[in-house]
């Protein structure tokens, strides 16, 4: 698929899965989509390993936009991107946007064939500068 992929990373698997459900309702299967949540040990948190797996699952040559909830999700996502390494890392962006609204808006933009830059810009419009 040539549309930009969307990855949802929450501390809570319930939030991540629920957000993914809302994205699917909007865009169906037109956008590669993956989510992860929880620390991998049954608790709240985020796991670099799980995030790397989600990026693989939602991978698109057009790039991947990651939507995160709280700080640790952002830090762990940035770490995951770094560990995936170049050349793919430059096609992965961790968005600064609210997770639910950001994911739905970004996916909607992506479903129209928008570039990674446009998808990320759409998500960022949701965050006051």
């Amino acid at each position, binding site marked *: 698929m040539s549309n930009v992929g969307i990855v949802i990373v929450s501390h809570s698997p319930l939030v991540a899965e629920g957000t993914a459900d809302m994205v699917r309702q909007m865009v169906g299967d037109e956008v590669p989509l993956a989510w992860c949540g929880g*620390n991998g*040990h049954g*608790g709240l*948190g985020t796991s*670099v390993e799980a995030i790397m797996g989600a990026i693989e699952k939602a991978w698109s040559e057009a790039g991947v936009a990651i939507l995160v909830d709280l*700080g*640790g999700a952002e*830090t762990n996502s940035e*770490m995951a991107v770094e560990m995936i390494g170049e050349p793919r890392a430059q096609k992965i962006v961790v968005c600064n946007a609210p997770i639910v609204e950001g994911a739905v808006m970004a996916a909607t933009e992506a479903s129209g064939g928008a570039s990674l830059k446009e998808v990320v810009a759409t998500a960022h419009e949701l965050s006051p500068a």
Partner: protein
Amino acid sequence: MVAMAASDLSRLIAAVADTIAAHADELTALDQAIGDGDHGLNMKRGFEAVRAEADTFAAKPLPEALKAIGTKLVMTVGGASGPLFGTLFMALGKEISAEPDRAGLTIAFGKAIEAVAARGKSQIGQKTMLDVLQPVHEALAEGKTAAEIVAVADRAAQATVPMKALRGRASFLGDRSIGHMDAGARSTALLVRAVAETIERHA
């Protein structure tokens, strides 16, 4: 400082893991006061995972060992502390030589601290682990003894109590973060103590 033998690195790993395990409840309590309360358990899980593979790490040259330990922490800690402490070890491994003298260690440690600051988008004075790392780096550079460095680390962690958190979950509390020690600063001071005392004892 002379070349580090495999047994030395094993001893350091055991000392650090023991210290974190012994203080896990305390770290969790600190984190519960102004964070999400998972710091003790997360750090314990990470350093137990490092301990489980201590022999493998210790068989590697020091730079490779530190990078591998950092990667293991990234993969096992599970909170923001994973990338932050993982980056500290990974960057230290990247910058250090196989047989560092004190000057080499000091320079590498300084660069590792910069990497942690970049990873956390943070700086000194924001009630984080950097508030312990920075004074410890200065003490290293000034030629302080192991005991003095441990004291500097403890004082630095204590000095986060009156600070207002500007990074991490504690920053959500604003002024209410004042009056509590930062859990990451405390765990950093514990790491410094375990490493400094182990090296001193076996020097």
